[in-house]
């Protein structure tokens, strides 16, 4: 697999959210707006690339029997870095994302990539894999957040899209709206793939 292909697989064919259905808890919980979705996606991408790099470098040192705790320690370290940085520089976002920043530790996408890819590959492919998967995750969260924000608040990235007479469909920024939007987007992607074949 070439490096480019390695990167591209995370965008569509093995997209974490829409194809592997991994990391759905933060996906559904924080995508009440496009901005929150992107912020969560970037934070996760940073942790994912960091953990992939370190896990790949240490893959011959970590004994097989304790690899999961070792991965978690590595991931948790990067999450702590992200959390402290966001608290220092992006306090509003930090408050908006709340508990879901520390919860990046248990995002199964990150542990999944460490276990399935980084622990079996050299440094460069592991880094590219983390970047690709993270970008795909960020894109997915952006799309989901944008759709929910558009119908649930009538805005996109904070700018009003519809006229002042628009009555927002509040359900879309509530938890049930996350599931409904997710399901409809999945259906749309499946339809697109089916048509293309």
């Amino acid at each position, binding site marked *: 697999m070439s490096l480019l292909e390695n990167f591209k697989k995370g965008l569509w064919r093995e997209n974490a959210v829409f194809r592997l259905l991994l990391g759905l808890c933060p996906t559904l919980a924080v995508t009440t707006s496009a901005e929150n979705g992107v912020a969560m996606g970037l934070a996760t991408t940073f942790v994912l690339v960091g953990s992939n790099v370190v896990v790949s470098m240490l893959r011959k040192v970590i004994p097989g029997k304790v690899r999961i705790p070792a991965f978690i320690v590595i991931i948790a370290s990067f999450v702590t870095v992200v959390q402290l940085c966001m608290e220092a520089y992006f306090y509003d976002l930090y408050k908006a994302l709340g508990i879901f920043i520390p919860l990046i530790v248990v995002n199964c996408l990150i542990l999944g990539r460490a276990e399935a890819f980084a622990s079996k590959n050299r440094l460069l492919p592991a880094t590219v894999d983390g970047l690709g998967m993270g970008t795909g995750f960020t894109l997915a969260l952006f799309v989901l957040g944008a759709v929910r924000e558009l119908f649930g608040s009538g805005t996109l990235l904070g700018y009003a899209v519809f006229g002042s007479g628009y*009555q927002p*469909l509040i359900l879309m920024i509530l938890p049930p709206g996350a599931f*409904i939007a997710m399901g409809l987007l999945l259906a749309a992607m499946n339809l697109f793939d089916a048509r293309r074949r």
Partner: protein
Amino acid sequence: MSQQLYLSSSPHIHSGETTSKVMHAVIYSLLPACGVAVYFFGPSALSVLLIATLGCLATEVVCQRLMGQPVTIADGSAAITGILLALNLPPSSPWWLTLLGAVIAIAIGKQVYGGLGSNPFNPALVARVVLLISFPVQMTTWSAPAPLGSGLDLVTTATPLGAWKNAVMLTGQMPSDLPGSTADYFLGNMPGCIGEVSALALLLGAAYLFYRRILTWHIPTAFIGTVILLSGLFWLIDPAKYPNPVFHLVTGGLILGAFYMATDMVTTPVSTRGMLLFGVGCGLLTVLIRLFGGYPEGVSFAILLMNAATPLIDRYTRPKTFGTPGQEVVR
């Protein structure tokens, strides 16, 4: 031997009942309630009824065309969803609210699951709850009834249940001046959703369905019985705070819910034991939401929650298989 033998598997006797016959009987049974609604709320009720029904039919056609399925709007199921949705909306609903509800009911509530018979939740109630959560202002703006010919305009006011909940939240006491009498509530002369106001008209329609044997007694009896017992218990404990069971019975959507929404064949248990359990669950949740929940009315939430429990109820009330003595039913 010129005689031919025809072999076929059971059943050999057909009642002649078809989906579309059942659906049309339900539509007829809802006509009295629709009539009362138009009498009390005038043209606005009529327009809500028309928009909801036509909206549901149109959405069904579009969905079935898109999915390449035969269009089955003639069976009447989409029309019923439309009528039931309209009966669950306030008379002052703006047209876009009603239309959006119709699209949600059929597209999200029914067709995404595969159409009639596959939906786990009552489509009309799904739409009602989506609208109630999304547009709390429009969905809780109630009009006082203005009978045809009285020359009155529709005036905004609170439902009896809403007035009670407000007073209890503010003072902890039952209000002394609830609008209207029990007779008013029974006939339909009270503010509320288009179709829930007249217990009398709904009972007339239900009687017809009983006569046609489309309804069985299990769910409505268990539902209403539980509401009476539980609300009666609270009333006996503190009559100064909790309204009496008759109030619970004739205000709000209990009659509409118990006879028309909780008896939906698709989304409720199949065995009689299951139906009784379903009804009791609906009753419990309704009273708990009405007395202690954030919303004044809990019938639609109660039925949707029990819809979600229906597969589980069906699983645990499965009758024993004949011809397998002493054998545990495989779960």
